[in-house]
């Protein structure tokens, strides 16, 4: 960007930067600051005490379990779906992509509702499940299902455009040279998309841990048993335990900031490779 003709005057650049940063401060930094201020309103001691209660710890555990199940499943799906979509031509691709993206636009409330309609006692499969004493909603499986639904598109959506952009030449070359299909995928495709994959996993994980609406509908809100961290935040807030509520919230916010910072650091660290692999 050395060419003078394609740079804006300094004043314009400063104004644009200031407006953009102001907008971000207003909409992103301030809410984050509000969460942290409330969490530490009564100091470090109160903050740690709020986190160390049994029910809070069990909500953290449940959240980790849910993410540990739903994220890997969606990663496997994301990889296969993007392989099928990016490396081959077939009719109905737009429809398929739209269907994959659909959970993005389904209201979280509806995502919960569909599982109630399916597995609830008054639902399609509910009486069967109840007869066999198998609980889906108001138990961990329901929470996992709702989370998988909500985070379904994150990995696939990151990978599809990336793989499409990278084309098929490299894979075709590897295959002509005698590599097996799986080996090609492992050694050519995956390395090419790993940054996108990493980013998709981070987003998928963040959303899996932070989902509120869908999980709220299927959880049953049993203290210490079926409350995930976001649900526990609401409960603490409703008990007028504002420090506790925002302390748990700050953990989730912190998780987001840390994973995103880690991603940035990783990218910076591997920036030489990155320029080599990116097109």
């Amino acid at each position, binding site marked *: *960007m050395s060419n003078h*003709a*394609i740079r804006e005057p300094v004043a*314009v650049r400063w104004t*644009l*930067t200031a*407006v953009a*940063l102001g907008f*971000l401060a207003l909409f*992103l930094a301030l*809410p*984050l600051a*509000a*969460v942290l201020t409330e969490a530490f309103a009564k100091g470090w001691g109160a903050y740690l005490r709020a986190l160390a209660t049994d029910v809070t710890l069990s909500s953290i555990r449940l959240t980790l379990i849910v993410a540990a199940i739903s994220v890997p499943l969606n990663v496997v*799906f994301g990889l*296969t*779906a993007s*392989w*099928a*979509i990016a*490396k*081959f*031509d*077939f*009719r*109905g*691709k*737009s429809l398929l992509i*739209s*269907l994959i993206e659909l959970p*993005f*636009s389904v*209201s*979280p*409330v*509806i995502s919960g*509702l*569909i*599982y109630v*309609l*399916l597995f609830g006692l008054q639902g*399609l499969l509910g009486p069967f499940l109840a007869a066999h004493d198998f609980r889906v909603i108001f138990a961990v499986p329901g929470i996992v*299902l709702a989370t998988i*639904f909500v985070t379904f598109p994150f990995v696939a959506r990151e990978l599809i455009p990336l793989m499409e952009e990278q084309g098929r030449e490299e894979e*075709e070359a590897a*295959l002509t040279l005698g590599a097996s*299909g799986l080996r090609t*995928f492992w050694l050519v495709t995956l390395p090419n998309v790993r940054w996108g994959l990493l980013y998709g996993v981070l*987003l998928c994980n*963040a959303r899996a*841990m*932070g*989902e*509120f*609406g869908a999980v709220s509908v299927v959880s049953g809100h049993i203290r210490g048993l079926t409350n995930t961290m976001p649900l526990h935040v609401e409960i603490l807030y409703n008990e007028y335990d504002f420090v506790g*509520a925002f302390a748990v*919230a700050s953990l*989730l916010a912190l998780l*987001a900031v840390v994973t*995103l910072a880690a991603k940035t650091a990783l990218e910076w660290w591997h920036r030489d490779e990155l320029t080599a692999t990116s097109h």
Partner: protein
Amino acid sequence: MTTAALPLLRRTRVASSVIPGFAPALGFTLFYLSLVVLLPLAALLLKAAGTTFEQWGRILGDSRVLSALGLSFGGAFAAALINAVFGLLVAWVLVRYSFPGRKIIDALVDLPFALPTAVAGIALTALYAPNGWLGRHLEPLGLKVAFTPLGVVVAMVFIGLPFVVRTVEPVLQDVDLELEEAAASLGADRLQTFFRVILPAIAPSLLTGFSLALARAVGEYGSVIFIAGNLPGVSEIAPLLIITKLEQYDYVGATAIAAVMLAISFTLLLAVNLLQKWRRARMGA
């Protein structure tokens, strides 16, 4: 639904590719998609299909339902527009200019993806309430944000922002600087270059980001209910109405509203994806 779609999904250029694994990859994709997304949604549609024509008319003709749908879609549209403008600006600043802390700010953009929506709602309400950090200064100006439709838009802007920034950023990075130089040497000023050269190049991604932000905001629940005020006909969103109907054991009403929202959102996404495909085909030709 899957079986009906299969002939559509038949591979068209079988001979031209040596890449293996089409059948298992697509097979698994369709299987997982059906299991996780299509089957549960089919249960919803099945429930909605049992609704009589008359019930549909009564549910959707209700002024309260109409104004809730209006607020959800109208608010989401306004929020997506704001995000398109400011998201583009943010992407531009992050890609084109360098300033201290740029990386950190770039990472911060993803915050709304990660922050639980309920937390976002509580935090935004705390900020914009009449006694909040921002609300305190806006109130004397006659600007009420929390507990009004404006608050709904604010929450929707928050959750939709990363969609626009993240879809525009990579494309903006790829815009060919030589084209801009050429435009400049032909006498175009910066503004002309932006509107004639850069904007057309990033327009598709901007549209995608806009539609994703729109679709996400339409269904948003957690962050909006805290800041909305939830007055029927004024600041009540459609997802809240679904919950309200559910809590009155009105499954028919809840599924009917859900089905309508689903249909509109899906049409929107499909239209955008078809538009992108059409554009790619045109550019390829």
